[in-house]
């Protein structure tokens, strides 16, 4: 279903008016070079202090909250691994009821953060339920392509060919043998007003997507590419370079789905070969030329599918 979405609350963010104050304080316990925490900082800069954050169990919860310290400058709650969306549903409903009864004044942003494990796997049901019910909240999936907090185990976001501690590469195995689940597409299929992919290497693009997601009425989902130097076996200072390569190789294309309409927000004129992206990462070092060729074919096919979705949804009139 295609429909018109009211984005009048959205004001474009540029290098000049970029908000500076993150809700995540420095001094948290993330690994050096963690792009996941960087992404969370970017999202909360846009959201501003009038925000309530729900955090699923995972790296970001652990590194920001060991009592008696907290890295959070806004109200923040962690309940469990698989239920951030359900908790957000309750918060949004509670605030709505209290506002209607005149017990509280304003209308804070409600943002849920979950890793790929808590989004793709164990929290899939609660996310789907919350999107379907139409709660007005933003869900950010911080996708580092494995369960990092428990020691780099595979998830259904782990890409084909990646070696993890539960999908190890070995004489009989290439590592992860399944294809990455397409979460943004699954979320878009819930017919929610706003879905996007975002990459911290393109910070203005990411921030503008958060702006739009918060401006729409109803659920929004942003899939954020969150490089994990520790889990991926790269140097801490190269996280943003790798993140950039993911988009430059078309492996992580940047697009948004507004009211069911797909659009690229960045298109790469001359995509680099996927090998440029795979090569620096220890998790892919066992791959043969043949494996890389296979992955290249897959990347091209996925991108082609996305292009066709863009064409199809823009050719069709809104209902």
């Amino acid at each position, binding site marked *: 279903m295609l429909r018109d979405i009211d984005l009048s609350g959205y004001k474009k963010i540029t290098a000049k008016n970029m908000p500076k104050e993150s809700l995540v304080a420095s001094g948290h316990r993330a690994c050096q070079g963690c792009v996941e925490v960087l992404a969370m900082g970017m999202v909360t800069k846009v959201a501003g202090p009038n*925000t309530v954050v*729900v955090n699923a169990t995972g790296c970001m919860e652990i590194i920001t909250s060991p009592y008696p310290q907290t890295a959070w400058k*806004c109200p923040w709650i962690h309940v469990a691994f698989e239920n951030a969306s359900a908790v957000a549903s*309750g918060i*949004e*409903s*509670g605030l709505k009821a*209290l506002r209607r009864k005149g017990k509280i004044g304003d209308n804070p942003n409600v943002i849920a953060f979950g890793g790929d494990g808590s989004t793709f796997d164990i929290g899939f049901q609660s996310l789907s339920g919350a999107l379907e019910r139409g709660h007005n909240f933003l869900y950010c999936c911080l996708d580092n392509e494995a369960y990092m907090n428990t020691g780099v185990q595979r998830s259904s976001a782990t890409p084909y060919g990646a070696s993890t501690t539960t999908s190890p590469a070995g004489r009989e195995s290439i590592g992860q043998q399944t294809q990455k689940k397409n979460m943004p597409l699954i979320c878009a299929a819930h017919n929610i007003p706003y879905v996007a992919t975002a990459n911290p290497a393109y910070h203005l693009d990411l921030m503008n997507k958060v702006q739009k997601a918060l401006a729409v009425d109803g659920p929004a989902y942003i899939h954020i590419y969150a490089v994990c130097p520790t889990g991926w076996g790269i140097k801490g200072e190269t996280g943003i370079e790798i993140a950039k390569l993911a988009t430059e190789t078309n492996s992580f294309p940047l697009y948004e789905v507004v009211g069911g309409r797909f659009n690229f927000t960045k298109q790469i004129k001359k995509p680099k070969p996927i090998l440029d992206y795979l090569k620096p990462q220890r998790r892919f070092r066992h791959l043969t030329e043949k494996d890389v060729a296979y992955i290249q074919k897959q990347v091209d096919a996925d991108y082609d599918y996305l292009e066709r979705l863009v064409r199809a949804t823009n050719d069709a009139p809104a209902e």
Partner: protein
Amino acid sequence: MLKRVGIEVSLAVAEAVRLARADVISAYPITPQTHIVEELSHYVANGELDAEFIPVESEHSAMSAAVGSAAAGARTYTATSSQGLALMHEILFIASAMRLPIVMTVANRSLSGPISIWNDHSDIMAERDIGWVQLFVEDGQEALELSMAAFKIAEDHRVLLPTIINMDGFILTHMIEPIEFPDQKTVDAFLPPFEPAMRLDPAHPVSMGPVGVPEVYLEAKKQCEQALLDSKPVVKEVLDELNELFGRDYDLVQTNGKDGAETRFVTMGSLGESVYTAVEALNAEGKDVGQTRIRLWRPFPVEEFLAACKGAKRLIVIDRAISPGSVCGPVAQELKSVLYGQPNAPEIVNVICGIGGRDVPIEEFKEIYALAQAGKLEKTYTLWGLNSNA
């Protein structure tokens, strides 16, 4: 002030939640709890209750949404049973550890397998140690009144703990009883609006649910345990207020039958009514028997229980759940630990009955009494009414 109506007990509970002016109700259907939340959803749909009704996709999410809503500062209600309660298990501990005064009705039902929708207490007995205040009701009137009282207990700043009202599935939930309803004004005077001690408010940021490192975890647990123990006098206080208002005599523990009787039945929940009838009949035959009914199950009212059993030489403890691999049923286990080391502690005879909805007629309690007197029941526990040598 009071209006008497013949009504299904589930609908009376829904009415209690409406009168309590709940702000948020999260719910997932499971028999025999469904009528409560169906009725509440109708109230919301018809504008008779100004609340958000969240029809979640599972009980796990029902409890998670309840945690979020209570953390946001809203008066929050949900209801469940059996498999649903089991699915909530993980979050039940978190709700009490976060000190969130959610009120939940558990329509007690047996657990799978085999799947059974009928009544016993195995669902709640698997959730003994979640740190919630837990009460058992015996009839519809009590279900209505304690459901309102539950909010007052839970939200009291000396308590701030989630609270469960246990009511037997079908035996109570689906029974039509004459029930007296209070008016809104009376309830408003009894139950003030929820004033959270802490909430998710951007003007006053707090972090809820942080990591408990080994240096603080134990202390956090101790605080929760203390809060639960400290809730007992508040429960008593709220029951006293309720008694005053509605002319009842609810107490943490209740006694029936002969005072200082040599043998006492101990019951929890609606089977207490059948036992009560049996005890009356036995007393009429001149038998030295009484009954102790436990209303507050967590925190366990140790002193009140001991006082209520004073002088007894034998307790026939009626359990409604099996504790596989243990020496007796869960209530008997509890009472054995309460009585251990007490001077002149009575002997405990444990009868596990009414499992999976098996009927236990009044006559059978008289039979149980006779067998107990004759020393013919098992030393450990007797599974009452077993039809095979399975």
